[in-house]
């Protein structure tokens, strides 16, 4: 089915406005109506409008003023000026101010539909060219680096979805740039002037997540010393990004669903409804349908959010992007650390390209940072490469052993159990299991730079289990 486009009709005559509305609705467009310039500007600010039919002779302002105002906007709709004045100078002036075309009233329905469709094709083409130009010129898009085909598809989806207020569901392995994608969706949207509020549902203790999202009033729970707004209030007019959505407990998922459906929410303990106009973006690094099947994600919430899906490709599928990203990090870290690094040897490049990168861009970033911190020179050589774990589930064929310097190999993303030789030989050396567990969990958190969700994933438990245990440790 063709994508439904939004057309704004700015016309003070009711019969003329309805003429355009009915004819364009008949070919599947969604219509917004404004009788004057003030209403038109408000609708343009609050909606993603693809095309505008603009009467130049409005009760409160000259339509040319709207065209002048829109010249400052990065994503102005394609505008077709409608005028009863056939003077060419008016049309020329409108086109000079950015209008795509003009129609002299009265006009036939077929002419109207053709002109609007041409305007939509024109604006689509402009956007596509702009995306392509930005991608090629800057070897990337928004804050992304990379111009591989899988990423070109992601960029196009982000660019198209950014103009809408539709919910977006981002999937992808850890480290593939889900938050970058969410941020790009926000900065390219008409909401860019308002806040982008990211929340990692897996990193916030479950009993605090509700007040983190909705806020609370003084005394709502132990420690609630003052009234406090939550992410919902901060993201009003902007974008709320809910990462690791599957970690949210079911009761809170129900409240979130109601919030998404109605825009209404209650601060914890308050008992009165507040309203917020929010664009929702959710993300998970697991299969969301599996989470639905396992009963960890409400099906209705999933489908409410899964309007525009964005699948972030793993780094191993991005070909030469690996080198573009590695060079970008090399330049950034070399400058930050005062190192002379400028390039990599062809052998290093070949190794980087051959490696499956189970931790994706985040892992590549850490590898380059490690090299820059521990070494110096004009170029990265093979000897500088650190040990890189190999996941058997990700690599095809024998693991690139030259990248693996004798550290524990990963199986299904997890380390093999230590050999028996590493286990205690005397009964006295056995330490209590709970103590061993604590040591092991804390070590896992340290090795993941303090990230509980990442440590939990590596340990094969949920982040909430770690939070619970940490509380017990005191």
């Amino acid at each position, binding site marked *: 089915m063709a994508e439904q486009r939004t057309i704004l009709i700015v016309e003070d*005559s009711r*019969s003329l406005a309805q*003429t355009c509305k009915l004819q364009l609705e008949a070919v599947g467009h969604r219509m917004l109506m404004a009788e004057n310039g003030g209403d038109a500007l408000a609708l343009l600010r609050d909606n993603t409008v693809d095309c505008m039919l603009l009467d130049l002779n409005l009760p409160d302002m000259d339509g040319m003023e709207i065209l002048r105002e829109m010249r400052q906007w990065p994503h102005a709709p394609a505008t077709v000026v409608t005028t*009863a004045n056939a003077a060419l100078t008016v049309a020329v002036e409108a086109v000079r101010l950015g209008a795509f075309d003009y129609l002299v009233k*009265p006009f036939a329905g077929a002419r109207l539909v053709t002109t609007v469709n041409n305007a939509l094709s024109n604006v689509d083409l402009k956007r596509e060219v702009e995306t392509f130009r930005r991608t090629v010129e800057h070897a990337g898009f928004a804050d992304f680096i990379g111009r591989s085909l899988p990423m070109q598809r992601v960029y196009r989806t982000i660019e198209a979805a950014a103009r809408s207020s539709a919910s977006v569901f981002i999937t992808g392995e850890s480290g593939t740039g889900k938050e970058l994608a969410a941020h790009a969706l926000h900065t390219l949207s008409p909401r860019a002037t308002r806040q982008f509020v990211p929340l990692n549902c897996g990193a916030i203790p479950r009993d605090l997540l509700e007040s983190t999202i909705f806020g609370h009033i003084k005394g709502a729970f132990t420690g609630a010393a003052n009234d406090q707004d939550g992410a919902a209030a901060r993201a009003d007019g902007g974008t709320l990004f809910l990462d690791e959505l599957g970690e949210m407990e079911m009761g809170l998922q129900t409240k979130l669903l109601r919030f998404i459906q109605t825009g209404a929410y209650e601060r914890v303990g308050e008992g009165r409804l507040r309203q917020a106009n929010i664009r929702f973006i959710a993300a998970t690094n697991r299969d969301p349908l599996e989470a639905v099947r396992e009963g960890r994600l409400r099906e209705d919430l999933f489908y409410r959010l899964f309007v525009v899906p964005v699948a972030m490709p793993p780094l191993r599928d991005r070909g030469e992007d690996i080198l573009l990203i590695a060079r970008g990090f090399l330049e950034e870290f070399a400058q930050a650390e005062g190192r002379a690094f400028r390039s990599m040897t062809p052998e290093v490049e070949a190794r980087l390209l051959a490696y499956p990168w189970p931790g994706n861009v985040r892992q590549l970033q850490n590898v380059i940072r490690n090299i820059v911190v521990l070494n110096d020179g004009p170029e990265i050589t093979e000897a500088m490469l650190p040990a890189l774990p190999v996941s058997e589930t990700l690599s095809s064929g024998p693991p690139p052993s030259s990248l693996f310097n004798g550290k524990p190999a990963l199986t299904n993303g997890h380390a093999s159990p230590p050999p028996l030789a590493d286990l205690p030989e005397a009964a006295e050396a056995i330490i209590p299991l709970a103590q061993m567990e604590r040591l092991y969990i804390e070590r896992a958190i340290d090795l993941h730079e303090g990230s509980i969700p990442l440590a939990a994933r590596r340990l094969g438990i949920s982040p909430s289990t770690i939070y619970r245990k940490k509380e017990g440790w005191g």
Partner: protein
Amino acid sequence: MPDDMPPAFDHAHIADQWGSPADDIYWTILGIFAEEGAKLCEDARAALSGGQLQALGRTAHTMKSAAANVGALHLSRCARELEEASQAGTLRDLAPLVARVETAWAAVSERIAEGGPMAGDPTAEGSGHG
């Protein structure tokens, strides 16, 4: 109604803009215009009485376009003359032009009430909607 007054609706124009026979949307719009035209006539008379030259010009402008949209070309021409005169002239000169618009509107309104542009017109190809 003066005998020498041009037809309220231009059938060729309607056929050109809306097809022949005119599509369903035309009949919906004609119903909306029946209310809008009456309101615009009232607004024009009120603007004239209140001495509001600019409002009169705007109302005439809207009537000009809305009438042309449904094929009421004589009414549209009368409204255009009123619009142009209101931009250039004085209120005293505009009273006869407002009266002309009202007369043209009365003919259009009468034809709509009878069943549409073709109703009662022997030169028309159709005989109205339905």
